């Protein structure tokens, strides 16, 4: 099995079998990244394909000082954000009405399955989802998020707060559905 360094070298030389191996190793993780930024699976796959093409096109520029996976993840995030910008969705969501329900305890996330959590994140409005992902998952500061998304820092902060609240609400709804389902199953 090729090491990561060998895999990168081979991809830089355009060796097809290694390019396939790269897709096999990392496409699943990159699809998860894309899924967190867009709501539907088909769009996420489109973003993944676009990201992979960009990765192969720019792999010569990859500096081996940083994490290769992190570098690929960054490309995928950029592709997703570019898609959202193109779709003019980022600006629309700021005006979406948000309920004033309280958020949930962050420790709750730890009890959730990852697929379940991704499912909830996908239900967030696009703009909130982007801010939530960039801040909570990727770990960017509000200043960086503001620059990436072309919004103000205060907008980023407020969208994050709202995203968390919506996520809490969605989680509670999910919980109640689960409870009903399990009761039905028992009876």
């Amino acid at each position, binding site marked *: 099995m090729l090491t990561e360094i060998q895999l990168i070298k081979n991809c830089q030389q355009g060796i*097809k079998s290694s390019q396939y191996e790269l897709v*096999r190793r990392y496409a699943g993780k990159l699809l998860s990244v894309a899924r967190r930024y867009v709501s539907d699976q088909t769009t996420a796959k489109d973003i993944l394909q676009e990201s992979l093409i960009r990765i*192969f096109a720019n792999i010569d520029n990859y500096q081996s000082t940083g994490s290769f996976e992190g570098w690929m993840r960054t490309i995928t995030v950029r592709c997703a954000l570019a898609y959202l910008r193109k779709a003019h969705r980022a600006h629309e969501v700021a005006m979406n009405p948000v309920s004033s329900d309280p958020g949930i305890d962050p420790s709750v996330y730890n009890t959730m399955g990852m697929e379940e*959590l*991704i499912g909830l994140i996908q239900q967030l409005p696009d703009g909130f989802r982007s801010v939530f992902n960039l801040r909570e998952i990727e770990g960017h500061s509000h200043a960086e998020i503001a620059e990436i998304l072309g919004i103000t820092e205060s907008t980023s902060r407020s969208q994050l707060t709202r995203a968390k609240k919506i996520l809490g609400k969605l989680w509670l709804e999910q919980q109640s559905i689960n409870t009903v389902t399990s009761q039905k199953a028992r009876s």
Partner: protein
Amino acid sequence: MNKEIKNHPSALDIDEIWAAIEPQVDELNAQRKKRKPVFIYCLSGLVLLVGLGLTGLFLFGENLQPPEILNEVLPESTTQNVVPIITTENNLLVKKEEVPSFSADLKTAPVATTTSVPKAEIEEITVLKSTLVAKDIIKKTAPSSANSTQLKSAINKVVIPNNPGINNSTIPVKEEKIASVSPLTISKIGLTVPASDLPELNFSIKNNKPLVPPPLYIERPTFSIEFQTGISAVNRTLNPTGNSPNNLETASLRSTFEEPLEALHANILVNAHFPSGFFVSSGVGFTQISELYNNNSTVIDSIIDPMGIQKLIINITGDTVPVIGPVVSTRTTTFIKKYYNSYRMIDIPLFVGYQYDFGDWKTDFSLGVLSNILLATEGRIPDTPTTDLDLNTNGDEIYRSRVDYSLQFGIGVSKSLTDRLSLRVNPMFRYYSRNFIKESVGLEQQYLLFGGTVGLRMDL
């Protein structure tokens, strides 16, 4: 939570994604391949340009003649009387008061009052570490009738500047051409000659102009160009680099079915021959190693046909009823395959050697490194007992694009055909110590070539 969600992979059909991006990946790879030859052409062009530039410099550059050193060894104690010429920045000036000393060494001759020598007139005189140098263009020398034998031999070779200020009328002179004289020799000359034995020398030096130091002495080589062509026997080693069963099987398959044939060579070399006998050669070399992939084998395997007749039943009415279903059959395949594979290389050789001259015949030995700039493959190699890999399409995935370097040792014998043309036979062996195959493939392929070249060498 962050880490978990970051590392969480989503389920997807890899082949579907790959199928979607494959055409664009192919396009990117094609663009990459286009860039590679451009780089190689640029590199080759640069090497050729530098080679031509250096050749031109030696051929048409300043004509540097080595100075002839006098053989006479004269007493060292006399050197103290030699007059130094003082340097001023980068120029050299002959000072007024120093010139008499110079003449006084030859004989205490009266000196004119003018201060220094015009540049054009004393361009052959200069200073190296407080000694005088006289170089080129002999003017007039002392008579052969001088009393001292040392004076006789030395004075004949001393260069006296063609200075109109020198009064030569008192010296019976003869014209003789000598290339140059070393600083040491001059200093010694002046000190060993008794003053009474010297003819009277009167000269004056005018103006105060800089002296230009002579160019440094370089042993000038002669050049030749050589066109070589040759053939070699090939000894190949092919081994797996690890203990992987796949690699062992591939190595075994290839060793069974592949047979090295011969290697062909074609070189263009520029040789620089130094008077000492050493020579340096460089240029461009092409090598093609040929192999035969010959597979005359029979493979027996089992295949499952999903829709075969498992059995036939003859029912009570006498009808034949076939029972359809998966059927395991034995397949016997006979392969008769013959492919000629080739590994083509372009190298930049650099040889250093020594040549013995026996008149029309010459012999030499040389040792060198060939830097490989390109490896191209063609043909087919076995991948499994039943399948092959096409090197024309998959060669880049298996073989390296450059093989770093190889080493060569050769012995040459040449015979002059005309004044400038000679025929040279060069038995040699070459060792490719570096692996031809990429590290990731898990095989090691190396070559040892033993053969020779025949070439025509033309002196430039």
